[in-house]
């Protein structure tokens, strides 16, 4: 049963600390997306990659967030330094360009104190 995996599932950290979230997309999918979900804003797209190349990161605060795909099986989202307003659930999703449906992982719940 192919699925997107994310680690860690939960993260509690203090303001100013670096946070790294990891995602393993479904094997064979060539697009990867990072979303953030909060009660106030709902689901917001932060960044997405196609064939490991970043295509759009306009939803991401550039000064503290960075997203990379070191290889086809790993995507990372890093926050440095973290702030309390970054507290949210971060989802990774993957898909195939032609199909367009996106398959979401279980999310990383981040709490910044």
């Amino acid at each position, binding site marked *: 049963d192919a699925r*997107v995996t994310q680690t860690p599932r939960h993260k509690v950290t203090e303001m100013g600390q670096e946070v790294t979230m990891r995602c393993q997309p479904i094997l064979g999918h060539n*697009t990867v*997306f990072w979303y953030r979900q909060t009660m106030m804003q*709902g*689901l*917001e*797209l932060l960044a*997405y990659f*196609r064939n490991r190349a970043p*295509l*759009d990161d306009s939803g991401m605060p550039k000064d503290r967030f960075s997203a990379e795909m070191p290889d086809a099986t790993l995507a990372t989202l890093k926050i440095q330094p973290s702030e309390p307003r970054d507290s949210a659930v971060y*989802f990774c*999703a993957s898909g195939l*360009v032609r199909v*367009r*449906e*996106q*398959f*979401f*992982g*279980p*999310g990383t719940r981040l709490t910044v104190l």
Partner: protein
Amino acid sequence: EDQVTQSPEALRLQEGESSSLNCSYTVSGLRGLFWYRQDPGKGPEFLFTLYSAGEEKEKERLKATLTKKESFLHITAPKPEDSATYLCAVIIQGAQKLVFGQGTRLTINP
């Protein structure tokens, strides 16, 4: 600006009581409309894709329809296990990214 609006925000029904959820959109060139289901503590789960006005898709007790301005998710004789948040999203022309609505939180009471 591309917008997706879902209504109502929350809906409570009795088991077996059919109803519809609405997703209205104002986008510059719709390339696809998607419905997702999200259970608490989990990621959204894909349900349907609709591409053109008049198109309909069905899955068990759910049926999704699309017009030029909105989509409906019809729920027929719902069961408690249909309780979830239902999200609507669109892909606009020239982009691969989804723009999500705020969701409708559906509760089905036994």
